[in-house]
């Protein structure tokens, strides 16, 4: 039941085959079974039961058009404010903070009948790409369970580890040689690949090792992947929704900046933050987007133009669609599996009727450095409010106000947050402002212009990898610090945030290890319709099976047995 998509669940809820309380109970049960994965910081069981009961009542009355997501269990990343419910940002600073108001996204989801099941784990204040820097402990990727379930220490052998890999579809395999030979798009770039990629660490180092979810919205991605929620909200500043979606084998959608309200989303970088939607399918993302999009008086950066709901059509044709493959996205460290999936996807789209060509985004290479400066500056500013006076953690020293601030902030923030605050304040000093902040803003404009130029040249959207590899192991990920990993991990996702344009990652294939690989479609401002249509087409024609953990509900059932296919 927890493997249902939103669309399926809605249909069953409406015709009475399923009731909201039962669905809610199943999700909560799944979450309870997986507490060791640290998916949630707070499970909101009580609120969930109450919402589900209200949903059931409304459904029994039969008026379900006013509540497009009636009875759908949803999880929110713990940086969305929930009225009266603890909202921590995975930080000691807010470990006991209960906001007096709900974020607009939370409010709109609840208004539409959705059932809040929990507040998902994350990197502290969304700073990270592994979801391992949290006061609630690191989030573990639910795909880890597949291997632990079969008592396999090694995840190198896909045959024994994962029996769910389908044979490649004919369409993809036949077009393979043909297209590669013609475009030859990967040959030059693959030479740059560093040997030290995540996929080369083929084994867990010991029994306690596991796969990371990516981040910073790792809890949200894990919640959807594991079936603990049918929808989850993350936030996306440099890829924080798309990165974990890719590692967890779910759809991660970052809409255009200004389409979704940030009111009540505790900010990382105001000028780039966007609420992200995580679902099992592109169709589900569209359903959720249609429910929550549109102007919000509490967020002056939301557009006032009326929102036109996205309509997806299973018969959508790629004829006339021009897809660009940015040559600069063959980043060092990209695993051959990812490149392979990327190539296959390009071929698939071309075979489906789209025009696929190589394009150039020359300034992309500077994006991460530029992002680092802008992010630290806004972090330094946004974090200034955490002084222990009005809310949040307050240190127990009281000699002077300055001491109180220093102790509160030292105790409340982890090293990653403090490091970014320090750097940001340095960049913003009067003597440094022009050299760092202003320069970074200028580079941001160039990066943004790159996208504009490509789209102006007739390209409808771009296809790129989402991550460098499939999900890395914790042991590999922690070989480097948060900053290094963030800079590596955000390389494909981050430039999009500079330009504010929409992007969606769709699981494209399973790696030889049996782990999901996501690919990213990048669209044009406010053209979610086209972006999601193509992503939906791709989803229908790709070769991928999502994770199902239904075996947890019936331990005696062999996990290799064919499972309910959600699609």
């Amino acid at each position, binding site marked *: 039941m927890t493997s249902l998509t939103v669309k399926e669940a809605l249909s069953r809820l409406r015709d009475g085959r399923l009731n909201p309380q039962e669905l809610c109970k199943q999700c909560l049960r799944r979450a309870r079974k997986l507490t060791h994965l640290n998916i949630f910081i707070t499970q909101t069981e009580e609120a969930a039961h109450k919402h589900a009961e209200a949903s059931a009542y409304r459904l029994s009355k039969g008026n379900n058009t006013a509540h497009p997501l009636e009875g759908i269990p949803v999880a929110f990343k713990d940086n969305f404010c929930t009225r009266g419910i603890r909202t921590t940002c995975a930080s000691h600073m807010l470990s006991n903070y209960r906001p007096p108001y709900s974020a607009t996204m939370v409010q709109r989801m609840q208004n539409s009948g959705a059932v809040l099941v929990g507040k998902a784990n994350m990197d502290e204040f969304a700073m990270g790409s592994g979801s391992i820097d949290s006061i609630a402990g690191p989030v573990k990727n639910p795909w880890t369970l597949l291997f632990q379930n079969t008592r396999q220490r090694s995840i190198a052998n896909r045959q024994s580890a994962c029996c769910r890999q389908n044979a490649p579809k004919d369409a993809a395999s036949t077009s393979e040689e043909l297209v590669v030979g013609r475009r030859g798009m990967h040959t030059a770039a693959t030479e740059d690949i560093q040997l030290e990629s995540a996929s080369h660490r083929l084994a867990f180092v010991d029994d306690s090792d596991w796969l990371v979810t990516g981040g910073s919205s790792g809890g949200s991605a894990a919640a959807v992947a594991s079936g603990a929620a049918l929808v989850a909200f993350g936030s996306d500043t440099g890829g924080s929704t798309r990165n974990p979606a890719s590692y967890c084998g779910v759809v991660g959608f970052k809409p255009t900046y200004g389409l979704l309200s940030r009111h009540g989303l505790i900010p990382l970088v*105001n000028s780039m933050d966007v609420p992200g939607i995580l679902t099992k399918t592109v169709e589900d993302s569209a359903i959720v987007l249609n429910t929550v999009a549109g102007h919000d008086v509490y967020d002056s950066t939301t557009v006032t133009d009326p929102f036109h709901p996205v309509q997806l059509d299973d018969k959508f044709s790629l004829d006339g669609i021009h897809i660009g493959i940015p040559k600069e996205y063959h980043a060092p460290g990209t695993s051959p599996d990812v490149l392979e999936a990327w190539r296959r996807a390009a071929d698939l789209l071309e075979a489906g009727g789209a025009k696929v060509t190589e394009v150039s985004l020359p300034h992309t290479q500077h994006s991460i450095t530029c992002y680092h400066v802008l992010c630290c500056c806004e972090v330094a500013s946004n974090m*200034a*409010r955490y002084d222990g006076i009005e809310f949040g953690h307050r240190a127990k020293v009281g000699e002077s106000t300055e001491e109180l601030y220093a102790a509160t902030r030292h105790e409340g923030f982890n090293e990653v947050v403090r490091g970014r605050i320090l750097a940001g304040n340095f960049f913003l000093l009067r003597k440094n402002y022009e050299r760092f902040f202003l320069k970074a803003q200028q580079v941001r404009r160039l990066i943004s212009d790159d996208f504009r130029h490509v789209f102006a040249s007739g390209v409808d959207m771009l296809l790129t990898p989402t991550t460098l590899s499939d999900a890395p192991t914790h042991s590999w990920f922690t070989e480097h610090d948060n900053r290094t990993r963030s800079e590596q991990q955000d390389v494909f996702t981050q430039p999009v945030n500079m330009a504010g344009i929409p992007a969606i990652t769709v699981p494209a294939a399973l790696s030889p290890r049996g782990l999901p690989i996501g690919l990213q479609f990048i669209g044009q401002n406010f053209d979610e319709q086209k972006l999601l249509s193509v992503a939906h087409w791709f989803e229908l024609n790709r070769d991928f099976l999502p994770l199902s953990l239904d075996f947890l509900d019936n331990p005696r059932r062999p996990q290799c047995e064919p499972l309910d296919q959600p699609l």
Partner: protein
Amino acid sequence: MAAVRKGPVVCKFCERLHRSYPQAHLLQRRLISDTASSSEWKSVVGLEIHAQIATSSKLFSGAATKFGEPINSQVSPFDAALPGTLPVLNKECVKAGILTALALGCTVNRMSKFDRKHYFYADLPAGYQITQQRQPLAHSGHVDYVHYRSMKGQTDTAETRSCRLIQLQLEQDSGKSLHDAEDQQSLIDLNRAGVGLMELVTQPDLTDGEDAASFVKELQLILRTIGTCDGKMQEGSLRVDANISVHKPGEPFGVRTEVKNINSFRNVSKAIDFEIQRQVKILESGGSVENETRSFDAETNETVPMRDKEKLLDYRFMPEPNLPPLYVYNNESVPPGADTDRIVVLEKVREGLRELPGEKRQRIQEQYSIPLRSASLLVSEEGLLEVFEELVKDGAHDMKSVLRVLLHDYLGVLRKHDYTVAQCPIKMDAIGDVCDLVAAQEIIPASVYKMMCELAEKPELSVKEIVDRDNLRLIQDRKLIEQVIFEVLESEPKVLKKLRKANSKGNGLVLKPLLGPVQQRLDQRGNHVIITEIAQEILKKML
């Protein structure tokens, strides 16, 4: 402000009627006489003025802005800087800012932007103030104000001066810290946090304390006229920071100091003049002025350095990312299809402009041929000009008498009771009757103020009743007056002696020694003009 309410006081030095404080003159005199060489120094003053915008809700939130409400009762989540809250610009504040800019002759910027100014202080919840550092709402502009120049031994002259403005920006007010020294506690009241402010920055066009105070008064009057700020300095809705330096003529400006948060006209004048003197003293003794921020201690009348002056403050300005640029349109530039509820159009705002104090002064000076000083006084009290114009309409009452009664006695009553014109219960007819009595010289001049006071307390009484009851009519009987004059001359040889002596110098006829004793015998009720006439006749014959 207490002094302002005490009633008109005639300054001992300039013999001018002061609405506010004669102390200014005392101070200025001291300034001139104390430091013999101070005339060699030129002082330069520029002001930064924070005017709270008189809107019912705050600049970026829907919380109310009333003064004196229970502590922390007007605080929205945004005002407390709760995580995740975002600023939403209050359109009424923008309109008030633009209206003010227009009234001050500023150029309104087509596009302005908001910045964050960072500093840690307990009553600044976000750790930054949202302001308009780089691209303010408006720039340039000027204020023409009336300045009274008083020189020793001369009657003072009123003159119009002008002070240029650099810019007008919108920004947030901070909260208030209440320090409890006994319990070693600081308490924070956020009612004021986030209230909209207009910050006005002037050019260093002002010269001293009184000049600056005159400027601020005019600004207050303008803001009250257009209704964008209530101008109550004692409630903190109008606050002044002064930048002060001194230099020798022909040399560049000296190092300046800033005196922060001055909260009354009196203190504006005192703080600036103290600071000028302090700097002159330092420079004359060979020292150098330190560029620092000081505050004014109203108890000691001194400026003192502020506590953390040694810290180098770097505000780490950054653009506010949550607010789009603020566009102000004019009729031509309104984008087609724009939602007029969401945008601000210059011409629409301009319709809210009213006749400004300077325009009023100029108009009535010309229309009624009255001096600048009278015009200035009439304009300075809200509603007073309307009373004046009503009384002199179609020549109903003698204008000079109306001016005398309104500017001396009526204003005095307003001050005594802290009334506005609208609140004052004296009926228009009664004022008219008093003016007529004054014009006809039928009433004892000294009793006018007393009578007005009584009318304010018992507006049901008629002027005639009071005059008859208290026997306030002047003695006009020429025979009686003549008789009294003879009595004095006959019974008081001293007076005659004085008269002879005074009139022996050939400086024309001197009556002064005679008038006092005559009025004394008439119980101070003799008509001065008639006494003078008759005395002249008699003395001409006698001497």
